[in-house]
């Protein structure tokens, strides 16, 4: 693909769909207040505690890979 032309046939065909598509991508926003974030992080940690593998030390030690590219 000649990247400078950035062809996007599936998106540029209909201009209506195009603008919908554009607004369809969620926009980033500044995060909530620091306190709300901290409270949420605590809640997330509790949830993650439930799914974390048992015996972290052994699990991490056992994760051994052969080299790759």
């Amino acid at each position: 693909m000649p990247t400078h032309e950035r062809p996007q046939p599936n998106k540029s065909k209909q201009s209506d769909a195009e603008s919908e598509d554009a607004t369809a991508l969620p926009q980033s926003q500044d995060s909530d207040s620091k306190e709300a974030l901290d409270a949420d992080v605590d809640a997330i940690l509790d949830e993650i505690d439930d799914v974390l593998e048992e015996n972290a030390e052994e699990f991490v030690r056992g994760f051994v890979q052969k080299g790759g590219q």
Partner: protein
Amino acid sequence: MGIETEYGIAVPGRPNINSMLASSQVVNAYANSALAGRQDRARWDYDEEQPLRDARGYDMSRAEADPSQLTDEDMGMANLILTNGARLYVDHAHPEYSTPEVTNPLDAMLWDKAGEHIMAEAARLAAQAPGGQPLQLYKNNTDNKGASYGCHENYLMDRQTPFIDIVSGMTPFFISRQIITGSGRVGVGQDGSESGFQLTQRADFFEVEVGLETTIKRPIINTRDEPHADPELYRRLHVIVGDANLSQTATYLKMGITSLTLSALEAGQLDASLMPHNPVAELHAVSRDSALTHRITTRDGRKLTALEMQWEFHEAATKHVAQQLGSDTDWQTQDVLDRWADVLDRLKRDPMSLASELDWVAKRALLDGYRKRDAADWDSPRLQLVDLQYSDIRPDKGLAYKLEERGRLQTLVSPEQIRAAVVEPPTDTRAWFRGKCIQQFGESVAAASWDSVIFDIPGRNALQRVPTLDPLRGTQQNIGDLMARADSAAGLVDELKGG
């Protein structure tokens, strides 16, 4: 463009598994999945592969190559061509998924996410198979014990752009983009023996500035020159220096800002002025600088932060887009430019405000949570486990997916779109033809590759090879009617030859 990802593979409690065999089990298991379609295990066609072709203009001899570089020798390794146009195979000791060729960063991200879904399903099936073991796959890039495996990006480029300009223009880009594209890592040094956090999984495994190798002495700029397209017109930039990303925004931006910067380079908007004095050391230094204050020293003695460098690239890309496209600029190009600026702006003000968009920040926020709550230090196995399990691709175990579920990691495409991309090819590249051939006539496809589909048609002596050298032909628009009309592989081949 496209993305190829090697996944980490493990069986808990069994660090010494034969990972080549296990990877083959994963790929072979997927052949039996309903999602793979009906096919007779089409072989990969290596005719056009030249892994020892160097972009600097010469071939390495096979005798002097490291055996791991001879990727065109089919060692009876498992290999599947999927109905979405992707390739699922075993590379070295890892299962690997290559997306179909796509024309834009959003599609690259979508088919890359489809790859996670495919790998997760393949591992699940492999574990269920007779004699199967509980295989787990990880979309990360290191085991923190000295091994690294890659997530490579590919961009088709104009052959006329001199390679030396790519080196001097893109090296500072790859070094500075780590602040956006990093997936975060607990551990410093190739074996992770130094404690601490860094922005990327991959940086410590890069040792030279330019080279052909991908498995040893890894270079920031890789010179493999296999365009899988007309070599007179195109080269393929094979980018091996990036991390595998879980965040949809990170993958989308990685592909978007890199392709825009390459376009600016092709148009002559980039010069060599940002080239660092010591690229490899700067790559490592930027990765280890969570505060984003490290200053990179350029060859002409300027000292710039990675953020400042990224702004220079953003400016060059913006100028290029204005000149090249002006009011015809498509929404996605504009969206990439806008998000890029927004991310740089917020990284400057408060990096942690990117916790719902960038992998390294999302991971860092979790780790900081554990450090605070449990007073855990960087050597804590729990922090190392969080780092590892962030990339677990089982839907109920992967921490990135948990963050997505809670709305703490932003998504740009829906689960329905990802499920569709698991089986359907992109419509606007030759991958559409490849995928549809497997969908409609899988039993008759003897082999395929990026630039060919080879049919074995009953009653005909010779295999029928259909070349697909032009990446933008074989699209739904080109041949949708023809594919709809074809009721057999023989009919399709006859019509293609006649037309």
